[in-house]
């Protein structure tokens, strides 16, 4: 009996040692990045582990380099000017704005469609749902070129209105280098529709009957009964959607061409060229862009992990 227990504990120890070794390998690049971000150039390019001096000014320098060698200065008289002038902040604002807009769009379209497919009767319901599921098989690459061409065709609503009604002589602007191109094509997600449909089907009929007897309309029922019950589905859909826009690279590369419109990923690829061989600045820049999402992940890790494992998709 004693021997069994010893064997079991020894086995557990081995498992822990293996897992810790793996975890160290997985985490090491992050640690290396953080340490590198405060090293001097000389420290960073020799193989010592700890920085000999902790250069916090690397962060400021990285922001300056990212900004085309002009430092970002905060002006108390005009506090919002920094969002225009400081490219790093601008990248963040772009990414967060686009991310939130896409998430809200996806949630709105998916909740409505998911509800219709889960609880409403209409001719062609199954066929339409099957069509949606089939679009999951369409690879992103196939739609890339046509969507890029569409962006050169579509007029922005404000420039179209202004030109049509003669307020402006500037002509009609297309969607290239606008938020429209970064947001609109992504405001519907088949995966999210599927997720909400599954979730809404699990909501007991009795709740619906009670609401119906109280005279609630479908929209009222959806808003005040179904949505408060659907927090897990809402969070999963929102997180995965946000992660998708946060990590998007190929599309924003194609449709943005001015620094003011770049999301953080594209801005960072630009920064790689600007920082050149200044490793410590590269690490500082990477750290600045990694920290926000890392903190978000550590707070919400359960949702991230469960969202991915229930979805089985990559961001």
């Amino acid at each position, binding site marked *: 009996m004693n021997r069994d227990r010893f064997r079991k504990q020894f086995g557990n120890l081995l*498992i822990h040692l293996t897992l810790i070794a*793996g*975890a160290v390998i*997985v*985490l090491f*690049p*992050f640690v*290396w990045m953080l340490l*590198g971000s405060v090293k001097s150039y000389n420290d960073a390019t*020799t193989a010592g582990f700890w920085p000999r001096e902790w250069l916090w000014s690397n962060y400021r320098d990285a922001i300056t380099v990212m900004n085309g060698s002009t430092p970002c200065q905060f002006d108390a008289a005009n506090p919002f000017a920094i969002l225009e002038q400081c490219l790093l902040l601008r990248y963040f604002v772009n990414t967060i704005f686009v991310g939130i807009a896409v998430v809200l769009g996806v949630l709105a379209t*998916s909740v409505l*469609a998911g*509800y*219709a497919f889960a609880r*409403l*009767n209409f001719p062609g*319901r199954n066929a339409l749902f099957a069509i*949606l599921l089939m679009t999951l098989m*369409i*690879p*992103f*690459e*196939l*739609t*890339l*070129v*046509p*969507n*890029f*061409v569409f962006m050169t065709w579509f007029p922005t609503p404000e420039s179209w209105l202004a030109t049509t009604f003669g307020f402006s002589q500037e002509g009609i602007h297309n969607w290239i280098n606008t938020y429209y191109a970064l947001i609109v094509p992504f*405001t*519907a997600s*088949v995966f999210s529709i599927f997720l909400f449909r599954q979730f809404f089907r699990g909501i007991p*009929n009795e709740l619906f*009957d009670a609401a*119906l007897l109280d005279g609630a309309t*479908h929209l009222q029922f959806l808003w005040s009964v179904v949505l408060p019950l659907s927090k897990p589905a809402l969070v999963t859909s929102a997180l995965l959607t946000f992660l998708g826009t946060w*990590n998007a*690279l*190929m599309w924003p*590369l194609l449709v943005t061409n001015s620094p003011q419109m770049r999301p953080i*990923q594209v801005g*960072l690829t630009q920064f*790689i060229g600007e920082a050149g061989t200044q*490793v410590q600045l*590269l*690490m500082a*820049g*990477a750290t600045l*862009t*990694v920290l926000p999402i*890392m903190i978000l*992940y*550590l707070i919400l*890790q359960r949702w*991230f992990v469960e969202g*991915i*494992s229930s979805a*089985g998709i*990559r961001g």
Partner: protein
Amino acid sequence: MIAQDESRRTAQPKDPHAALARARGPRVQWFAYLYILPAFLIIGIFHILPVGYALWLSLQSGTVRRFQFAGLDNYVRALTAPEFWSALQTTLFYTLGTVPFTMALGLGIAYLLFQKIRGRSVYRTIYFMPYIISTVASAIVWAWVFDPRTGLANYALALFGIPAQQWLIEPTGIFKLIGESLQIGVPGWAEGPSLALVGIMIFAVWQALGFSVVIFLAGLGNINVEVYEAARIDGATGWQVFRYITIPLLAPTTFFILVISLIFSLQAFNHIFAMNRSAAQQLGGPLGTTRTLSIFMFQALYEQNRAGYASAIAVLLSLMILGLTLLQFRVLGNRGENA
């Protein structure tokens, strides 16, 4: 509304809920189309319509401003271009060098995590972290690790007495490099992926590992505990349980991850773009040895402005992806939700 429904019936139903259900059942709720309209508009314009347009585009030559019908020219050109076949080969190398490793390591770690150990969620959080962090940021760090002059990779090699390598700027095949150091001649066809691609593959495995751990964990959780208990009572050892119970019962999950990983490796773009950029290489460099099909397509559109040619490449790539997807449906059938 309810009174109306009930007045239509001759017999009063005993159960009001059943009456409600019947009343709701067959009636057509036309407004449902309004509910699905926004989603269908977006998906129709940006996902369904482009499929047809991509096929049409792939038959055109010229730039975005002016297209000309060119028949199958683009396809002929792609299929006769040496770059296409070398991109296909690079994609194949990338797949073979990432998918098996990601899956084997992922299964191993997931199995260890599944042994009711303490701190499971802490490990899970750590292993999953690279998957969350943006590819460009982590590529910057990995490019430094592989830096020929100041990187850790060469430092580690030096500990084993291996000379420094050029890593991300090395176009020579890995097997040729190994052969040279052992003074064995390696024929041209057996050179293998360039060392630059190997570096990118190591980075890709590191990043995708957490994904396969999490999916394997979910799959392990789906296996009925009683099966394990029965095996234990019959006196099976740990390895026997793993080999003869876990592996076969996990097959649907394994297959799911396999196909998803294959598809994603066909689509590989972000890693390669970011690593090329970080190593100051041209896209797909050095000497085109990291140019996968996705990169090849992107270059045709972005660098050469040839929308028709890029579409033809995209169609060819999509056919491969579609083949894999159909294979998945066929094998998994209705068990797709297993993972």
